[in-house]
């Protein structure tokens, strides 16, 4: 059963600490999205990759957030230093254009619930 795998599922950290979240996309998917979900803002797109190339990270605070895809099976999202306002659920989603079409549906991982105290 193909699925997007995210680790850790939960993370509690102190302000100022580095946080690294990991995502293993579904094998064969060429697009990876990172979203942050809060009650106030809903799902916000932070960054996304296509064929491992970063396409848009304008949704991320560049001074503290970074996203990378070192290989096709791993995407990472780092926050350094973390702040209480970063507390949220971070979702990774992967997708690939449907055969013969241009449209992509995204499949979500279970998310990392981050709490910064």
């Amino acid at each position: 059963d193909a699925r997007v795998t995210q680790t850790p599922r939960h993370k509690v950290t102190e302000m100022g600490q580095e946080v690294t979240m990991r995502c293993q996309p579904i094998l064969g998917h060429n697009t990876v999205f990172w979203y942050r979900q809060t009650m106030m803002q809903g799902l916000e797109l932070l960054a996304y990759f296509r064929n491992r190339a970063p396409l848009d990270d304008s949704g991320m605070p560049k001074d503290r957030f970074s996203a990378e895809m070192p290989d096709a099976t791993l995407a990472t999202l780092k926050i350094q230093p973390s702040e209480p306002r970063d507390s949220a659920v971070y979702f990774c989603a992967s997708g690939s254009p449907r055969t013969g079409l241009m449209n992509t549906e995204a499949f979500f991982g279970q998310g990392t619930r981050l709490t910064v105290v």
Partner: protein
Amino acid sequence: EDKVVQSPLSLVVHEGDTVTLNCSYEVTNFRSLLWYKQEKKAPTFLFMLTSSGIEKKSGRLSSILDKKELFSILNITATQTGDSAVYLCAVEGGGGSNYKLTFGKGTLLTVNP
């Protein structure tokens, strides 16, 4: 900037009622509109619509897209308590290879017994 607006933000109904959820959008180079259901964890995919007037159905759920007026509706008939969830609308758009999914804030549906 791409924008997706959902209404209502929340809705409380009784089992057996029919509900209509709305999604309007502004996006560059529209490709598709997607509906997701989110219970306690990750959003799960429901429908993808690409053409106007095509109604997608899955059991008691159905959805229509109007590309001229830039909106979609999601209908749920004979609601059940298991339909309680946040329903998310997303639009895929963008130029060249930079197409991406932009989500609305969702509609929280509560179905009471």
